[in-house]
């Protein structure tokens, strides 16, 4: 039940692929908004959509590796790192304007993760 380097790496991969997949979904939806004429098949075959599905699948695979080693009550709350990565992606990849409130929320999440890890290890 200890966090070895391998488990930590698997968790990071899981979160990175999951949020990467969600950012690709956003990219896909932006692309569809611009091209009104494309058929549903063309949309489903777009590189963004196929890529996002592949990323989410890889995220799930790494998540299963994490679950074989770590208690669910510890691992699942750690998935909230997703919020941090998505916010950074929204800010630096999509150039969205992020209200201060969301940075505050992400900061609170990180504090919670710190407290949780100290309590669990």
């Amino acid at each position, binding site marked *: 039940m200890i966090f070895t380097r391998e488990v930590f790496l698997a968790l990071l991969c899981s979160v990175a692929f999951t949020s990467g997949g969600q950012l690709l979904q956003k990219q896909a939806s932006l692309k569809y908004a611009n091209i009104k004429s494309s058929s549903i098949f063309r949309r489903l075959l777009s590189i963004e959509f196929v890529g996002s599905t592949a990323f989410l699948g890889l995220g799930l695979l790494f998540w299963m590796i994490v679950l074989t080693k770590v208690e669910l009550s510890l691992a699942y709350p750690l998935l909230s790192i997703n*919020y941090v990565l998505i916010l950074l992606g929204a800010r630096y990849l999509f150039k969205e304007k992020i209200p201060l409130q969301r940075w505050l929320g992400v*900061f609170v999440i990180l504090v919670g993760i710190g407290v949780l890890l100290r*309590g669990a290890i």
Partner: protein
Amino acid sequence: MSVSEDGKIKPRSWIILGVAILLTAVGQLFMKLSTQYLSGWSELWQQLTEYSLTSGNQTALLWFSLGILSYFVSMLMWVYVLSFLKLSKAYPLFSIAYVLVYVGAVCLPQFNETTNLQKNIGILIIIIGVVIVSLPSSRERVMRTSNK
């Protein structure tokens, strides 16, 4: 269809949202349960290529499939809910999934996971953070009122 004439959301929509959140949590619990029957990744892979699964790994795959199914159905329901419910209204409620997964993992005898005060406090802080992230910001609230 799911919003009545005075703009209030019908109870049916809340039930769908509730089931979507519940299925998200149940899916995670099923996936965790599947790993408890799994003998090992390399063994599973070898058994899959030889079409001869041990009963433990069969049980693992069964729970895993149920987990994926719950996850998938919850995602479909979630997309459906978002077609008539504002993201800022539905998303903070999603933090309930964290509570359900935690309580399930700690209380159900199949998992019987350990808990302590610091772990509880950490999870409470994370849930508060998730709610802060997903609530509409003051600017968005102003925009919505001016749109009316």
